[in-house]
C-alpha cells in the first residue's frame, strides 16, 4: 500500500471541500483533496447557483454577508470569471402570515446592515416587469443578493489548490479512517492508498453521515431529493431570483451571462434519500408554477431536468466544527445552501483549523448542539 502524507486531508470536492482546501493551502498547508467521483458530482453540481443574505437566523445572515463580500471579489482571488451577478432576490408574499414572517426576518437582517425592504406589488412589478401580480400582497427584496456559476467557482478553487502546490485526487473514495488514541491519523482510499495527516475534514455533503461513521462519529445529515430544470437561453427579462414559498410555489432565476432560466421547488411531502432520478411530476408541475409567475415563459423551451440532494440537518443550519475525534472536522448539513455558504464557511473552517478561533464565532453550528432553532427562510 502506497503511503502519502499531508498537513490536511479534505474529503469531498464540492464547494465546501474546494473552498476550505483552497484557504488551507493559501495558509501554506500541504492539502490533499480526496474526491470519490469527480468534482461537483454531488450536490454542488446540481444546485441552481443562488446567493443571498436574506435568512432569519442571525449567524446565517452574518456568514452570508461575509460570503457575498467574498463572491464580489472571487474573480480576482481565483483568476477565473465565476459569473457573479448581483441581480437581487425577491421573496413573494401571497398571504399576511408570510408577510409577517418576512417583516420579522427583515428586522433581524437590517441589524447587520443588510439593504432589504418589504415592497408593494407595484414595486415588485417594476423590478420584474413580466410578473403576474395576481394574489400578490408584496415582497421582500434585497438588491445585493445574487447568483454565480457553481462549476466555475468550485473548479476555480480546485485550480487554485493545484496552483498553490497542493493536490486534488479524483476517484478516491475514503473507505477507512484510522484513529490513534483520540486523534485521527490517516485515511485509506478505494485506490489502495494510505494518506496520513493530523487534520481530516469531512466535507462529503449528502454522504457526510457515512464518512463520519468511518470515524465512529454520528453526524445527523439526511439527503432529500430536489429536482431542477433549465431552459434554453433567451433574452434577459428577469433580474432577481424569484422565490414563491407557497406549498405549490417554486424558485427560479435567469442566468446573467447566458440567459438560461434555471429553477426548482421543494416537494411536499419531502422525498427522502439520495435519489437523482427525474420525475414526470416535476417536469409538468414546475412549468405550471413558473408560468403562473411569469406567463411569458410559456413559449420558452425546457432543455433538461435533473435532481440532486439537499443535505439536511435537523434544524436546517450547517454543521461545522470539531468532532469528538481530535483533528477530525466536519462541514456539512448545508440544507440547500452549501454553494452560497461556500466561500465564507471555507474561510471560517480554515481559520478554525489553523488558529482555533474563526473571525466569526460559528460555535452555534457545532455538531453537539440541540438543533432546536429552525431556519424559517429555507
Amino acid at each position, binding site marked *: 500500500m502506497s503511503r502519502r502524507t499531508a498537513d490536511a486531508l479534505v474529503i469531498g470536492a464540492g464547494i465546501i471541500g474546494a473552498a476550505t482546501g483552497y484557504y488551507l493551502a493559501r495558509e501554506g498547508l500541504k492539502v490533499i483533496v480526496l474526491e470519490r467521483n469527480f*468534482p461537483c458530482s454531488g450536490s454542488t453540481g446540481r444546485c441552481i447557483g443562488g446567493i443571498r443574505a436574506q435568512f432569519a437566523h442571525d449567524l446565517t445572515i452574518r456568514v452570508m454577508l461575509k460570503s457575498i463580500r467574498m463572491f464580489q471579489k472571487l474573480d480576482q482571488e481565483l483568476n477565473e470569471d465565476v459569473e457573479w451577478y448581483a441581480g437581487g432576490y425577491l421573496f413573494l408574499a401571497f398571504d399576511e402570515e408570510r408577510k409577517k414572517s418576512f417583516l420579522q426576518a427583515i428586522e433581524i437582517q437590517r441589524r447587520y446592515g443588510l439593504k432589504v425592504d418589504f415592497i408593494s406589488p407595484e414595486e415588485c412589478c417594476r423590478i420584474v416587469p413580466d410578473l403576474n401580480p395576481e394574489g400578490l400582497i408584496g415582497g421582500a427584496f434585497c438588491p445585493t443578493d445574487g447568483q454565480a456559476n457553481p462549476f466555475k467557482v468550485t473548479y476555480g478553487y480546485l485550480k487554485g489548490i493545484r496552483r498553490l502546490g497542493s493536490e486534488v485526487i479524483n476517484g478516491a473514495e475514503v473507505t477507512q479512517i484510522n484513529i490513534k488514541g483520540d486523534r485521527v491519523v490517516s485515511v485509506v482510499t478505494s485506490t489502495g492508498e494510505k494518506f496520513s495527516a493530523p487534520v481530516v475534514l469531512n466535507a462529503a455533503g449528502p454522504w457526510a453521515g457515512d464518512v463520519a461513521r468511518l470515524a465512529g462519529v454520528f453526524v445527523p445529515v439526511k439527503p432529500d431529493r430536489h429536482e431542477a430544470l433549465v431552459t434554453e437561453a433567451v433574452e434577459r427579462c428577469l433580474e432577481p431570483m424569484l422565490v414563491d414559498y407557497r406549498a405549490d410555489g417554486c424558485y427560479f432565476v435567469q442566468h446573467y451571462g447566458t440567459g438560461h432560466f434555471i429553477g426548482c421547488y421543494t416537494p411536499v411531502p419531502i422525498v427522502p434519500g439520495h435519489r437523482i432520478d427525474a420525475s414526470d*411530476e416535476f*417536469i409538468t408541475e414546475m412549468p405550471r408554477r413558473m408560468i403562473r409567475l411569469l406567463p411569458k415563459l410559456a413559449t420558452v423551451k425546457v432543455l433538461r431536468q435533473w435532481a440532486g440532494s439537499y443535505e439536511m440537518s435537523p434544524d436546517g443550519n450547517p454543521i461545522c466544527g470539531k468532532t469528538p475525534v481530535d483533528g477530525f472536522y466536519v462541514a456539512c448539513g448545508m440544507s440547500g445552501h452549501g454553494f452560497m455558504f461556500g466561500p465564507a464557511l471555507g474561510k471560517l473552517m480554515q481559520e478554525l483549523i489553523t488558529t482555533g478561533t474563526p473571525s466569526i464565532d460559528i460555535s452555534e453550528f457545532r455538531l453537539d448542539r440541540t438543533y432546536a432553532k429552525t431556519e424559517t427562510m429555507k
Partner: protein
Amino acid sequence: MKRSNRKGAIVRRVIVCRCEEITEEEVRRAIREGYHSLEEIKRVLRTGMGHCGGRGCLRIIARLIEEETGIPAGKQKFPVSRPPLKPLPLGLLASYQYEQKNR
C-alpha cells in the same frame, strides 16, 4: 471550418459542440489541463448542456480524450442523458395532466 485572418493566413477553427460553440482546440486545452472525463469537460466547457443534450458532441469529445490520454473511448463513462429528449416549451409541458403515481 476554414477562415482567413487579417494577415491572410488560414486558421482552422473546428466546432465540436455546436450548441455551445466549443472548438476542438478548447476541448484539447481542457484535456491537457487535466480534465480527463466527459463529465468534467461538460462542467468546465458546457459541452453537452445545449439543445442536443450531447448527442452531437460527446462521441467526438470521447475520441479527443482517447487521442490525448490514451483512455479508450469505449471505456469512458458517458454522462446520463436527461429528459426531455428534445427541448419542449414550458407551456406544452404545463398543459399535460400528470397522473399521480407512486414516486
